[in-house]
Each structure stands twice: as C-alpha cells, then as structure tokens.
C-alpha cells in the first residue's frame, strides 16, 4: 500500500496536502520528505488533509510535529483536517490536539482564516 500524497496549491496562500493510506514507520519518511520539500519550495501555510488516512501511528505523529516545528520556524503553520474518530483519538491520547490546529474540512482550514503571506 503506497502512501498517497496529493498537493493542491489552488487555494493560496494555503497549500493543501491530501494524505491517503497508512502512515507508519514504513511510509512516514515519504510524508516527511514531502513536507520538507514543500517548505523548501516556499510554502508556508500547509493544510494536511488526513481524511483519507486509514492508520496513523507515533512515527506519523512525529513527522507531523516535525513539520509543524519547521513551518513555525519559518513563520508558517501546519493545520490538520481530521474528523475520523480513530485518527483524532491518537492526537487526543498524546495531547497533540492542543499543539495542532485541527479543522473539520479543508474549507474551514483555508477559508475562515486570512493567510499571513
């Protein structure tokens, strides 16, 4: 099962990264690379859409935390889109719901908030 990573930059200043599949220690490196690449390419407001994620483990969480850190150090931000209870649960248990902005839809994540670029 390959990890699906689809970039949509039609919602400037936001860049939406739709993640599909299972994020574990096998696939997480590809997510990390993609986030690093987006930041190097100048993307600063990234929305990671996790609605297509079937499974997310601590390695995946670590990559998202790493992405958030990287973006904040460039005055950017990483917002997550997630409504699936089993994925939300992983953020809740680890206390990361207080670290990330978590939206209910890509529209909410990109529309309600003015970009800061």
């Amino acid at each position, binding site marked *: *099962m390959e990890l699906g990573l689809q970039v949509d930059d039609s919602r400037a200043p936001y860049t939406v990264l739709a993640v599909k599949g*299972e994020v*574990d*220690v*096998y696939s997480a490196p590809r997510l990390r690379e993609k986030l690093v690449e987006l930041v190097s390419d100048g993307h600063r407001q990234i929305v990671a859409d996790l609605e297509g994620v079937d*499974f997310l*483990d*601590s*390695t995946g*969480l*670590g*990559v998202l*935390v*790493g992405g*958030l*850190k990287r973006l*904040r150090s460039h005055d950017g931000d990483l917002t997550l889109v997630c409504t699936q*209870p*089993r994925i939300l649960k*992983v953020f809740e*248990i*680890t*206390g*990361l719901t*207080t*670290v990330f902005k978590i939206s209910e839809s890509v529209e909410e994540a990109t529309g309600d908030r003015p970009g800061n670029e």
Partner: protein
Amino acid sequence: MTAERSLELSVPARVEYIAVVRLVVASLAIARRTLAEDRIDDLKLAVSEACTNAIEANLESGADNPVVVSCWEAPERFEVCVADAGVGFDPDDLPQHPPVTDPDRLNFERGLGIPLMRSLVDDVRFESSPGGTAVWMTLFGGPEFGDETTEILRVVISEQD
C-alpha cells in the same frame, strides 16, 4: 485462565512487514467478533508501535533476527506478544516529556509509542533483558462475555495481579 497460542508470525526486522502484522492481528481479533471495531483499531495501533520498537531493537543489535508476533486466546481475553532479540531496555526508566503546553514539546518527535500502547490496550507488560524484549498486550472481551461483564472481569483480574 491460561491462554492458548493461536498463531505465530515471524517476520524479518524490516519496516515493510509491519502492515502484514497489523493485518494478521486485526483479522484474528475480528474473527472473535465480540471485540468492538474501535478496540480492534486500538489493538492494531498498539501492535504496530510494539513492532516498530522491536524492528528497531533488532536492527540496532546488528544480528539479522526476525520479530516474532504471537497471538494467545483465552475465553475472556486476547493477547498479543511481540518479541525481539535486541539489547533490551528499562520501561520504567524512559525519558519524561515536557507537558504539551510547553513550547519545548515540539522538540520531541519521538517517545510517543509506549504511552500510546499503555493507553490503547487493557494491559501492557514488558519482559526485557539484555537478550531481548517481549511486549505482552491484552484486550479483555471474549466470546463468552458481554460488554458489562468484560468491564467487571477486567477489574477483578487486574486486582488479582
């Protein structure tokens, strides 16, 4: 009650095999039917975390040992054991994270695995020595018990420990 081994799966210490382990454990747990779907998700994640650590431990040890996952069934519980031949560790002496409200929290991308395991399954036990580690994880809720009984049983059994 003594649990009986139902299945043993041995995989190379390579990350691409973790998905197969999740599949096997989940399909066996689903076959029990009395475990609710969200409990099976919990188990999958806990097993995945244990396998990630086991693979890492085996790789670090340098020897090309497999990771051995076994499932054990008893009427009132389902157990999974993930065993490696790494150098072992002390589960009671892990580094503490700063609280999530601390800005420093962002410097910790790791160390979430064991806390996750502990909160996802009903019981986690580590048997670790310099020769390797076995992580035992238990979900209560067997074919003969409904949800309420399971809860009661869980209390009774953990008090016996």
